[in-house]
């Protein structure tokens, strides 16, 4: 006996390559993605504790690095959470879920950085110590030091202090320039406090600048450079027009004696340092496709925490507009803030809130994107809240939180109640622009509607608070 019609029809899976950032799976089993646009977005994830906020943010960071290949900086790791990101995801359930969407577990190349100061407790694992360059410390003295009127005196005499190598030398220089002794004393007292704290590279050997260099063969740079200088110039004199491969200065640089700083990698070929350029450590690591992570566990309780963060953000903003490499390649930067209310909020009216506002407002021409996580959405700065392009809300119990989300993202009354009744790992995704959605059939469409669903697992390992054995 044969059936005339087969009821269960099996379809073979069809692979579709996408450029978007997959974020969550819809209620209708559709893949919801963030489009890869020219403008850098501000993405926020909010929710109660242990609802799956950092889990979702982790998965977004993984995919930004591996799919979009864009530099990313983790600005504040509060709880040693990011150590496990260096390994690939090992849980069976999550790997099976990833395989559904044609993904595989991958590690992240994280580099841990610790701010250097007095009496810091250093960890067992690999790390580097960070310090502020003394020049910057003096230039931004009003942010670091408690100077009121005498700050102007310090600013006027900055260039005479720069070369000094001890606080006594600074005092001598200042006493020569400033007649009033009381002003010199007030400057020195507040300056000594910070010099003794070993924040700057004045008296610590921590990293303040890093040189980034490529190994490049001389043959690759200039094929006839291995000849003698005169011979090469006679054979190939400088041309009058047309693109010149390298400038005269560069040519001289490679031919000079004693330039062989790098060591030969392969036998038979000479290798040299090329494109050597100087950055602050955070940006130096990011330029080489690594992910720097700043641990602020011990720093956050200090008095100078906000001025320290001000320095880091100021350098990144300046780098985006002024650095040749970043501007010519038009490279973007993503900043990730865990617990953003510790850095900038409505109650904290410090320098860092101004800087974060600056990034949120004018980060578009500077190619700066923001990722932030909070438990308290109400306390997030109003400008940062109004500039968020994508907001992912997990469960809340307080009504006031859900109401502010409704006001900001123009939700309906029904959707406001839905935020209060979400389960673990369930998300409500909202935008001011649009999501890109892929249906199981492979159809692609764009929507502005809010999406309810479950977040995708990360590619690298997510650390759990503890492991429990069921007996």
């Amino acid at each position, binding site marked *: 006996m044969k059936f005339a019609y087969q009821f269960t029809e099996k379809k073979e899976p069809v692979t579709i390559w996408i450029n978007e950032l997959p974020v969550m799976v819809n209620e209708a089993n559709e893949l919801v993605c963030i489009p890869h646009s020219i403008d850098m977005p501000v993405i926020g994830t909010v929710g109660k504790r242990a609802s799956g906020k950092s889990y979702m943010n982790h998965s977004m960071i993984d995919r930004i690095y591996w799919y979009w290949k864009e530099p990313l900086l983790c600005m504040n790791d509060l709880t040693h959470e990011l150590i496990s990101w260096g390994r690939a995801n090992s849980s069976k359930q999550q790997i099976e879920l990833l395989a559904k969407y044609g993904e595989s577990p991958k590690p992240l*190349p994280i580099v841990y950085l610790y701010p250097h100061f007095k009496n810091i407790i250093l960890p067992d*694992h690999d790390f580097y110590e960070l310090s502020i360059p003394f020049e910057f410390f003096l230039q931004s003295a009003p942010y670091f030091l408690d100077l009121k009127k005498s700050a102007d005196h310090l600013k006027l005499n900055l260039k005479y202090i720069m070369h000094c190598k001890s606080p006594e030398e600074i005092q001598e220089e200042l006493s020569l320039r400033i007649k009033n002794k009381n002003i010199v004393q007030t400057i020195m007292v507040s300056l000594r406090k910070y010099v003794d704290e070993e924040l700057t*590279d004045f008296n610590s050997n921590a990293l*303040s600048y890093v*040189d980034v*260099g*490529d190994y490049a063969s001389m043959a690759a740079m200039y094929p006839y450079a291995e000849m003698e200088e005169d011979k090469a110039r006679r054979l190939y004199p400088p041309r009058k027009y047309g693109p010149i491969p390298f400038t005269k200065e560069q040519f001289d640089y490679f031919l000079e004696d004693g330039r062989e700083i790098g060591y030969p990698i392969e036998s038979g070929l000479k290798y040299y340092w090329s494109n050597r350029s100087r950055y602050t450590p955070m940006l*130096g690591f990011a330029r*080489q496709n690594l992910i720097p992570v700043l641990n602020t566990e011990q720093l956050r309780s200090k008095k100078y925490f906000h001025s320290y963060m001000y320095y880091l953000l100021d350098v990144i903003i300046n780098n985006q507009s002024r650095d040749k490499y970043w501007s010519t390649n038009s490279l973007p930067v993503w900043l990730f803030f865990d617990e953003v209310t510790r850095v900038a909020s409505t109650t904290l009216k410090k320098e860092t809130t101004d800087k974060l506002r600056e990034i949120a407002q004018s980060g578009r021409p500077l190619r700066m994107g923001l990722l932030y996580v909070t438990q308290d959405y109400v306390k997030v700065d109003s400008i940062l809240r109004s500039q968020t392009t994508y907001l992912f809300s997990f469960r809340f119990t307080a009504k006031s939180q859900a109401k502010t989300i409704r006001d900001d993202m123009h939700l309906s009354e029904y959707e406001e109640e839905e935020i209060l009744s979400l389960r673990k790992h369930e998300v409500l995704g909202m935008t001011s622009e649009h999501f890109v959605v892929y249906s199981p059939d492979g159809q692609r469409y764009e929507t502005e509607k809010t999406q309810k669903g479950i977040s995708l697992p990360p590619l690298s390992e997510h650390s759990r608070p503890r492991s429990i054995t069921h007996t």
Partner: protein
Amino acid sequence: MKHIHHFAKLVLKSQGKAIINSRTEKTLLKFAGNTVDLRKFLKLPHMFPEENVTTRKVIELGDYNDLKRKNLIVSSIQTTTPWFASQKVRYILTDKRIPRGHQYWDNCPHGVKIQFDKVNNVIRLLGRNVSPNFIGPWRQL
């Protein structure tokens, strides 16, 4: 859990790059450990040129007949966009099926060198008339 920088070191190694402490001139993240071929694993973006990623063993072919044995020859074509003054032709590696407009070269043209990569089995030309930066593109054999 101690060596959390291990993957960061591998990424640096695959790019052929390094980071140096500007004060002490010592290399940070100097590679140490087992080598894994990351070229298949990592798809590097545009900012990292391929030149530094691949490992090569390059020799110079002195004899032009060595090139002919690989079923390749040097052919010349007239240029419309010269990159130096008084340039008339451009040299290209071609098969023995010569395209229209190309001129056959029985000997190696003056000022042109031929490089052969043993590892990747690729070949290229060097010289003034090859490309603006004197280096021609690699051609797979």
